[in-house]
């Protein structure tokens, strides 16, 4: 029984130029106690996905279709007061490591107390104790509670954000690029702590990032997202060892490999499609070295290739051979095809 199950989730943005479908028919599940990595480039819809789950979307966005099943309940169908009961108590979000996620005019301790007493309904004394416990949990110095956000370093702010997210012991944590803006040493510490927390607190985490090395380090399963759709899903080790979607192969090529540093980096040329008027067929086809006519006409639906392994590619069965070809830099150059 999955903790979170997205079924055909679709999110639209109303813009001046038309409706932009940022998330298109995404089906994904998160199991209890696991860390699911969600990787994709900027603008692929991964942030929107998280915000759609917790249902805090911008004014011009709405869930246009699909279901968001959390512990069996469709969150997309709930009223606002009903949804509020889930927010932070069951599902919490850790935002990007930015300056702005904490109110600059209140001290850290006050902001903890606020969420604990107002949303959590705890008494003041209990809230105070819980705050201290949370600091210890994430490795944040307790004295920092008297500081204002601008007085904290990036690493401290992220720890505070994680502690804040865990305040009411949620079951699901949506972590949106939680370590992107931090240096690698701090990154490592925080990721390690997140792993420990899933075990200690019976917590599931959706770790959204564009950095696949973070996924490799931390996540049990991973999903690759491209232009609002899921390209492939599977256990992290498997997806890394044998990717089935050309986009995933391209991603692997474009990240440096510590073990084989002599391998040249091959970028994926071109840019993601305009989601207001997406091309018919596979979204990745214009940039894909292996696209055939069928790819350009018919959008591939995600298929379960093996148990637990899904891929949205017409040529997923030939993945083995495509993988070998994908190592050739020439294949990725636009115009060679």
């Amino acid at each position, binding site marked *: 029984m999955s903790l979170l199950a997205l079924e055909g989730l679709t999110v639209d943005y*109303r*813009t*001046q130029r038309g409706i932009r479908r940022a998330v298109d028919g995404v089906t994904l599940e998160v199991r209890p106690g696991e860390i699911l990595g969600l990787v994709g480039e900027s603008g692929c819809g991964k942030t929107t996905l998280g915000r759609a789950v917790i249902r805090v979307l*911008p*004014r*011009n966005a709405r869930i246009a279709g699909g279901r968001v099943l959390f512990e069996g309940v469709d969150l997309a169908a709930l009223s606002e007061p009903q949804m509020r009961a889930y927010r932070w108590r069951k599902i919490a979000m850790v935002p990007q490591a930015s300056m702005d996620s904490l109110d600059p005019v209140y001290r850290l301790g006050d902001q903890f107390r606020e969420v604990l007493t107002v949303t959590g309904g705890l008494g003041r004394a209990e809230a105070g104790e819980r705050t201290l416990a949370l600091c210890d949990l994430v490795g944040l110095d307790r004295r920092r509670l008297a500081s204002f956000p601008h007085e904290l370093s990036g690493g401290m702010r992220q720890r505070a954000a994680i502690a804040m997210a865990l305040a009411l012991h949620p079951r699901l944590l949506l972590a949106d690029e939680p370590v992107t803006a931090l240096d690698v040493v701090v990154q490592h510490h925080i990721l390690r702590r997140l792993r420990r927390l899933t075990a200690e607190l019976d917590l599931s985490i959706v770790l959204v990032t564009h950095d696949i090395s973070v996924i490799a380090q931390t996540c049990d399963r991973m999903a690759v997202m491209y232009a609002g759709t899921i390209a492939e899903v599977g256990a992290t080790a498997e997806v890394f060892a044998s990717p089935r979607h050309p986009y995933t192969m391209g991603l692997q090529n474009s990240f440096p490999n510590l073990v084989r540093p002599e391998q040249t980096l091959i970028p994926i040329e071109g840019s993601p499609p305009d989601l207001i008027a997406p091309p018919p067929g596979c979204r990745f086809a214009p940039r894909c070295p292996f696209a055939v006519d069928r790819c350009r006409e018919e959008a591939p639906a995600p298929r379960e290739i093996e148990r637990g392994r899904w891929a949205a590619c017409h040529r997923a069965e030939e993945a083995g051979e495509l993988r070998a070809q994908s190592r050739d830099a020439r294949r990725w150059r636009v115009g060679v095809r």
Partner: protein
Amino acid sequence: MRSGSLEALPRPRAAGAAAWRRALGALGSVLRHDPFAAAGICIYAVFVLVALLAPWIAPYDPQQTIVRGDDLMASRPPGREFLLGTTNVGRDIFSQLVYGARPALTVGFAAAFCVTLLGTVVGIVAGYSGGWIDALLMRLADVAFGIPFLPLVIVLVAFLGPSLWNIVLTMALLLWKDTARVVRAQVLVLRERGFVESARVLGASPVRVMLVHIAPNVLPVALLYGSLAVGWAILTEASVSFLGFGDATQISWGFMLQDAYVSQALSSGAYNWFVPPGICIMLVVMAGYFISRGYEELLFPRLRRQ
């Protein structure tokens, strides 16, 4: 490299001229996108026309006390003969209103021009030069903030004499600081930009860089404050005239209000006398606000808020 060698390269000069053209062309863009700004421009246009064509629009001389036979046409109510009625000494209010557009617009545009020019020059010099020049000019501006504006205008105008140009001068002396600050901030950003760097590297003199490269790019911001300054100037002139320190040889809207006030128009309920001049002032100043808001939206567009 001497700056003279720059004459051989056509690009910097063209870039300068093109930038000026671009800056002024933005006005058309504003008109198209913002109905309020368009309305503002229309109001300005109407008043400018009224001011220019005053002798043809106004039925009487504004200073003339009108007599019919033996009767002085004093305090006449609005009617066919006197569109807005007459003052307590028999002057036609409508004619005064029409002619009043002249000093208002003159002061407004002249003061706005001077304020903008002075503020822009100071802002560019301060921002571009940096160092002690910048520090000195900004210190000056800081101190100026502590000085109450209208009281100083009163004192200066009273001592320099009640003429329109003294009012313009005083305002220019005191109001430059807002424009200067904003322009300076813009210049600080521009200074680091590529095209400025390349001009400097090629040996352009500081004056040339400021004039050809920086000035056209701060022009939009300067114009923004300029359009606000028109409103401030008109309000200031009205206040000064109302207090009795204005130019008595010119019938301005502020003067009309003072005239009405001291002639007990309030207690006699002569709304036809003191309401219209205030409406005119309000319209012109509002037009300035609308134009500057439309312009501001163009320069610093807010992310679309649905």
